């Protein structure tokens, strides 16, 4: 089979759309609108990598991510000749986004297929959006780390795998460790052989925790007035809008005088929003009882006028763009305190890093 197209019958789509636009929506698997599928997560599964993670959704989809770091010589930009005193500004100028290489592999799909490339670009974009990430890869002016992120879906793509891949990438990056640098300045880098002494790419605790954390990308769909998280295949098929919303936590250094132990105070920053073309737009419309030529063998086969009036119970593909109110509602639902992104990050923090 060349391309596995997800097929749905118009009657199914009409049923799903009706049940998902109710208030509250009835999802086909009975979840609450913001509920995720339960997932199993572990880190440090691949011994040969700098960091790795595996996430397994209860519906059987599973992904692993491996992070591998390599030292690479920085190609000098021509104007970097002037020897300025090393400042943070200069360092950020010299860091580049292409130090990160991200490859997504979906079984049964070519790696240069548009949808796979789009997926990997979405993940990459979220990672590089705050321009903090490449700074972490900076060693000195002559060398830098090159990070290879291999994202593998190991089950067939039962649903749009974006949330799964993003959560796995998040965990793998949290678990990524780089060897401790022993050399100083611009000399050839020397590293501590002891893996125990290695440092986390995203420091865990202590003073160095300020700065951004790895992002998560959530897939959100809107059906009617309902906002639904972590959609299954069936839900995506009737979605009027599908958005990939990337958020990351930003940690600020707590001032010494700030004694307020406010662990709940998580600051989220919105990194990117991408619209995903929902497959519902390409679905064929349903045929109402009245105009079905098949319902009577001798019915005149005259061309039915494409009636604009909607008949109850007949599927009609959604038309037009996303309304601003819907977009706003989705962003609110993601970003609000104690909202979904907050809860997801809470859940992922519970995963032991090894």
């Amino acid at each position, binding site marked *: 089979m060349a391309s596995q197209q997800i097929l749905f019958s*118009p*009657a*199914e789509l009409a049923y799903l759309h*009706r*049940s998902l636009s109710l208030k509250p929506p009835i999802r086909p698997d009975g979840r609450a609108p913001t509920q995720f599928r339960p997932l*199993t*997560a572990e880190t440090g599964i691949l011994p040969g990598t700098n960091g790795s993670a595996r996430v397994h959704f209860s519906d059987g989809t599973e992904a692993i991510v491996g992070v591998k770091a390599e030292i690479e010589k920085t190609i000098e930009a021509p104007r970097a000749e002037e020897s300025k005193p090393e400042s943070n500004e200069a360092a950020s100028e010299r860091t580049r986004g292409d130090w990160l290489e991200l490859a997504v592999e979906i079984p049964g799909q070519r790696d240069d297929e548009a949808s796979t490339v789009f997926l990997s670009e979405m993940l990459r974009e979220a990672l590089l959006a705050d321009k903090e990430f490449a700074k972490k890869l900076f060693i000195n002016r002559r060398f830098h780390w090159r990070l290879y992120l291999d994202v593998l879906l190991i089950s067939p793509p039962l649903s749009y795998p974006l949330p799964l891949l993003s959560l796995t990438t998040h965990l793998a990056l949290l678990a990524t460790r780089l060897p401790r640098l022993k050399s100083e300045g611009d000399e050839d880098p020397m590293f501590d052989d002891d893996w125990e002494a290695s440092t986390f790419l995203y420091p865990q605790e202590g003073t160095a925790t300020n700065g951004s954390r790895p992002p998560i990308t959530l897939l959100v769909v809107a059906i009617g007035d309902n906002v639904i998280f972590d959609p299954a295949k069936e839900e995506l098929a009737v979605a009027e809008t599908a958005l990939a919303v990337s958020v990351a936590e930003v940690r600020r250094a707590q001032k010494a005088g700030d004694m307020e132990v406010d662990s709940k105070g998580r600051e989220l920053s919105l990194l990117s929003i991408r619209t995903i073309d929902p497959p519902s737009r390409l679905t064929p419309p349903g*045929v109402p009882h009245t105009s079905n030529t098949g319902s009577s063998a001798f019915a005149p086969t005259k061309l039915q006028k494409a009636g604009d009036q909607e008949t109850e119970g007949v599927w009609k593909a959604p038309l037009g763009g996303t309304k601003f109110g819907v977009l706003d509602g989705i962003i609110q639902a993601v970003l609000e305190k104690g909202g979904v992104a907050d809860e997801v990050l809470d*859940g992922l923090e519970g995963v032991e890093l090894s």
Partner: protein
Amino acid sequence: MPITVLQPQPAAKRQAAAMSVDSDSDSDSGGGAEVHGEDILTPGTVITSNSQWMRGHGTYVQPGETAITSSLAGTLTKTNKLLSVRPLRARYTPEIGDLVVGRIVEVQAKRWRVDVAASQLAILQISAINLPGGILRKRTETDELQIRSFFAEGDLVVAEVQQLHQDGAASLHTRSLKYGKLRNGVFVSVSGIGGGSGVVRAKRQVWTMDVANAGGKVDVLLGVNGYIWISKHIESDTNAEAVGINRMEESVSSKVYSSQNDPLELSTMREIARIRSVILALVENRLKVDEDMVTKGYSEAVELGRESPDDDLYLGGEKGQRLAAALTGH
């Protein structure tokens, strides 16, 4: 709590040692004379070289040898002296008379190609369907030209396997009032699960059940191929069984090929979603899906739903395990 993150569970506990078939063998063979109990066999694993065992499904004997070898990945079952391997995952193999739910994937000049979760697409000939109105006549070119008005790509049909071809492909027919296009419900696929889980052939694959919470009646259709359709029960005007083939044209409703859903009540839709999550929970916990299990599981799920204030429908994860434990009775 919208998300639950669990720790990975260690693999299910196996029997400490592979059980020995009998105590006094082994001397003549350099290993492999033991029959592995709970272990998962892979294709090519020698199960036993002891000649007292007979080979069953999922095993073979190499020509010139006596050792019984597994040809599948699965667990071993022993029936008296018969050794067979139950596959972990298996594709549906069509058999004549099976009730299947299929999805049209291709429309050709005189026939449809239907996905029935088998290794090959099944064939539904235009001559093997009921014409609307139940008219009995030869299929003409006009019918062939408007073939998509009967079934189009993506449509779900319930049909019966009429014939098997040499290559294992199946031919279907829908020439009964019970068969045809599916409406007013949801689809769930549990195909590809071997080892006694998933849908098993049973006395009744279709039944109507009265659901709780004033949901009315719901039809459940378990296709032998693992495709399941759960829909609102629609009372037909005439009793399908009472109508002979001669009076078919009066009773075949003009709506058979329509894709318009009838008005559905919220309570019915909730209960349909509940039945769907019961089936998913059964499969997740590797239990078989049949009429008995689904009805029992459903009443259990209704009880479980009463525990939460807003009647939670979702049966994934821990709740599903509770459901499975209640059904298996330990």
